[in-house]
């Protein structure tokens, strides 16, 4: 009978899918533990945001206000989240394995003396959890043995919460020892894009080293991305070479995506890349090397020169409309 507290992250006072997935996963875990599911929103002036979340079937959303919580910073958030979990009697803390969740939750686990499971893909009825290891080459079945538990969930593996019964909103003054804060937010250089975000898009088109340079991403790949209304992703090689920004990297050590349609263009299909996209519903590969490993996981493979095939595909897609 453990209660669950979900950490609902937001950016510029907007929830991304990450927050709703965390709530969805928190509800599933609470159902198994026989406890209630609560959620917490942190920031300055976030009461409306908390109200919005309260419609998603959680018992209470705690609106945790404090000037030091205006920007995400790990030490302040860890203090506030662990204090809240203790005050409200929540033995299980759940968040998404996003860059914020990964940064924050291990600190919360230490503060609570809780065992930590990261990036889980399933919560089984017997209380065990599943998580991928070795770049997705092995699935581990694990259990947290401590009474308190901290869990980060893989966003592609759980259903986002949907609007259902309305819960209450409770304003909470965060407990923060400001003298103990060390990590200070300085600035955020945000990658601006009009495209859907990678982790939320129904379609993703990714480019690899085969694109050869950043210019080709713009002139060859992006027209297809936009014709499909897709998000754009990339392999590590393309990011390392500076063709595209780092937050487009998909894979073991980048973002994990599972859209309805994933198109890999000029990507060989290294295991580290597959780890980030092989749960996509339909996978398409365009590569001039018929031996490329990406074809082993593709539903549709086209052996072709991408510089010819991609513009053709853009035309063909536009004709469908």
């Amino acid at each position: 009978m453990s209660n669950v507290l979900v950490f609902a992250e937001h950016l510029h006072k907007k929830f991304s899918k990450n927050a709703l997935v965390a709530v969805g996963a928190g509800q599933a875990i609470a159902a198994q533990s026989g406890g209630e599911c609560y959620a917490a929103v942190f920031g300055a002036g976030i009461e409306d945001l908390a109200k919005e979340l309260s419609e998603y079937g959680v018992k209470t959303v705690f609106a945790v206000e404090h000037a030091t919580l205006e920007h995400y910073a790990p030490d302040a958030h860890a203090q506030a989240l662990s204090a809240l979990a203790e005050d409200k009697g929540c033995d299980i803390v759940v968040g998404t394995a996003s860059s914020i969740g990964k940064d924050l939750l291990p600190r919360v686990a230490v503060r609570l003396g809780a065992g930590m499971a990261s990036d889980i893909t399933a919560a089984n009825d017997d209380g065990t959890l599943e998580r991928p290891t070795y770049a997705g080459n092995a699935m581990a079945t694990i259990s947290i043995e401590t009474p308190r538990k901290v869990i980060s969930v893989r966003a592609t593996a759980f259903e986002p919460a949907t609007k259902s019964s309305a819960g209450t909103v409770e304003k909470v003054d965060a407990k923060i020892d400001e003298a103990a804060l060390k990590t200070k937010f300085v600035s955020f250089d945000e990658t601006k894009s009009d495209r859907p975000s990678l982790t939320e898009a129904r379609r993703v088109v990714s480019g690899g080293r085969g694109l050869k340079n950043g210019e080709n991403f713009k002139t060859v790949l992006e027209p297809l991305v936009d014709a499909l209304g897709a998000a754009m992703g990339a392999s590590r090689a393309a990011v390392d070479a500076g063709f595209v920004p780092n937050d487009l990297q998909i894979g073991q050590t980048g973002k994990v995506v599972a859209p309805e349609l994933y198109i890999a263009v000029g990507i060989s299909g290294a295991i580290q890349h597959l780890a980030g996209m092989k749960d996509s519903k339909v996978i398409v590969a365009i590569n001039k090397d018929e031996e490329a490993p990406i074809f082993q996981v593709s539903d549709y493979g086209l052996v072709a020169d991408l510089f010819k095939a991609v513009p053709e595909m853009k035309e063909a897609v536009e004709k469908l409309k």
Partner: protein
Amino acid sequence: MKILVAVKRVPDPNATIKVRPDGTGIVTDNLKYVVNPFCEIAIEEALRIKENHGGAEVVLVSVGEQVCQEQLRTGLAMGADRAILVLQDGDVEPVIVARALAKLVEQEQPDIVMLGKQAIDDDSNVVGQMLAEMLGWGQGTFASEVKLSEDKSSAVVTREVDGGLEDVEMPLPAIITADLRLNEPRYASLPGIMKARKKELKEIPLGDLGIDQSVQVKVHKLSPPPERQAGKKVETVQELVDLLHTEAKVI
């Protein structure tokens, strides 16, 4: 100035990993082991700080079996000054690694602890953050750039985060975890390898550190991931688009 670098021994990222039929682990026959790629980047960054900031001692730490010596020697050959191997048989769970590191930090009093952002075997991405909390230090995780202040009293770390790059600032001592774009690690030179043989490599049994070793997270079994079947090859772009439209119904 002193920099402690946490180094994990992991299977070569290019090796094919297979789960043992009995689910007790992975098949390790003929498996090559290396320094965790993120730890290699962490070592490189420590060496660069040493070179660019008028000297520093770079101390490597690994927690694991006797064979982890190999990876520590690799780091010493890259240029680290000395190494500590905390000996323990079998897998050591992340929180216990973090506790062991916290104990060594108490003894060594470093100004920076560098770690990899993630070990590519367990893919946990937790040890650096746990250690920061245990010590009450600031943290700059997923670092793609590290700038120390002139007087070496603080650091600004650029972090690779969802949606862009974030800068955070913290006083030293601090925890920094390395992401892929932080640097290109150097190779060990032949003279480096020769010198490494003579560098200090101290061994301490984990039990001697006096930390709580009770299990927090238990691994019951490993299973192979669901296999994905290769589908069909198409001949033309038109055929591809038609199939995506009529068969897969995704466009």
